[in-house]
């Protein structure tokens, strides 16, 4: 909510990660990607059948909000709720953007 949106697009300049493999958490890693390659997310989750699409949309939503267009994301989910997934995505992406 406190994130300010602007017109620029934000670049992922380095590999970074956030979160953990503890129960109820998610480990999200981000890597720089070529311009125009889009947001690619690789998800591992014990609840992939039930929540896979939702988790992907939650991560994507954060990337969109931060105006990141090109990034490779790997997410290993351990049963995290939506608020946690969004928080971890935000931390990982901001770290990757060099903040």
């Amino acid at each position: 909510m406190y994130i300010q949106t602007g017109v620029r697009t934000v670049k992922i300049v380095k590999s970074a990660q956030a979160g953990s493999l503890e129960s109820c958490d998610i480990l999200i890693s981000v890597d720089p990607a070529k311009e125009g390659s889009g947001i690619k997310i690789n998800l591992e989750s014990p609840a992939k059948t039930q929540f896979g699409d939702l988790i992907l949309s939650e991560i994507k939503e954060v990337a969109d909000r931060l105006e990141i267009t090109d990034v490779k994301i790997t997410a290993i989910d351990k049963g995290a709720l939506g608020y946690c997934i969004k928080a971890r995505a935000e931390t990982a992406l901001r770290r990757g953007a060099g903040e």
Partner: protein
Amino acid sequence: MKFVKNKVGRSIPEELNGKKLIPFTGKGKGPYKERKYAPKIRRTSPGDGKVLKSLREAIKKGGLTNGGTISFHHHFRNGDFLLNMVCHEIAKMGLKDIRLVPSSIQPINNELLPYLEKGIITHINCGTSGKIADAISRGKMDGLLTIRSHGGRARSIENGDVEIDIAFIASPTSDEYGNINGVHGKYACGSLGYAMPDAHFANFVVAVTNTLVPFPNNPISITQDHVDCIVLLKKPIGDPAGIVSTTLRVTRNPKNLKIARDSIEVIKASGLLKEGLSYQSGAGGTALAATQYLSEYMKAKGIKGSFGMGGATEALVKMLEDGLFEAVLDVQSFDTYAVQSLLNNPKHIEMGASQYANPLSSGCAVNLLDTVILGCTEIDTKFNVNTSTESDGRIMHGMGGHQDTSEGAKLTIIAAPLLRGRIPIVVDDVVSVNSPGENIDVVVTERGIAVNPESQYFELLTKAKNLNIKSIEDLKKEAEKLIGGKPKKPKVTDRIVAIIEYRDGSVLDVIYQIKN
């Protein structure tokens, strides 16, 4: 296939693989047969020896053919080598289309997977877990998995729904005439309760042991008159480390501790926690914590119970030793402490599976339970409980004595977290029904306690001031709010891979092969 809807709203085929199915119509029904099954009469004459040197000899002597049925107990749990050894031997002998009737399949049995795929094992009757369960979900076994409760298994063997050709009994000790106990020797596992119906009703009974003791073995759990031969093996039949735990761990998770404590508060509020209490709980971390809270409370108030039952654990046995129970009835001993107690304490009583939970008998022990604390993988707004399938549709577990104790006990408490990770436990409809809602009185979660409006304790419990009572609908909504919606339903094919029987032999639910 023609389908009928049973009492819990599940569509059950009228017939499956040429066998008529009885749809579940509510608890307390049956028997659906007039007489018990009668096994073959065998003769052992004076001078006949019973000790054999190999499993193959025993399999041949028992006359196993293609399509035959063999049974096992799971008292060695994840330290059991016998089930695998026998199946390997059968495969080598070129037999196929075998029906397995173990009392449970454990992860150690994962190595049997190729036999499912090759048609050597085509039917399994029991609760399964691990890779075998997963393979069955994916349609890798030709025949059916039949999931029964402990009492239902005993009933199916006694009424002949299952006819056992050979029962293989892993025996911690046996004498040369087939008197077996589970409390002595390197492979001591305690109670042999689940093997008893097999010993009494199989057409041929094989005791397999590494420890032959002089006649007569003492004490005797399974007697010589039921045992046709003893296979004395050098190769170990089990791994002591996998058979019993040295200590089961009480949960330290504050959420589970809260659930455990509130479960005991429910028992207090029900009025059952008084002199003469009879109690059962499982061996999971939360159940153990509940038993500990119960023990502290009974000690503080000077309440003396009647009996504790179930998987016997150190926690339960300590209550016996502290004089909080008159007796422990033990169908299965979970830890070394319980095994030692069964050996040494006359108030610790071994109990067969039928005596424990067979509904179609002249009276089983679960009927005398005041209260039981059970778990679940899901519970729905009709209080139907799922213990067998994950919310993605895969078979993952058996059901133990869930149906038996929940029907028998006056007050059945389901103790479970509202969510596991992001998976909701309280849902609109469970993926599969293992215990019907009519058996369940209360569900205790960390976020509130829901009482079944059909429960005789509804008024009493919903009025209790110290309980955080909510409706089951509200609990479900709370779960959905936390996870941000409902989980997607599993995608399945139209092939039935498993049926879930009620303890009386009627059918509660069927499980379909999952897609992909």
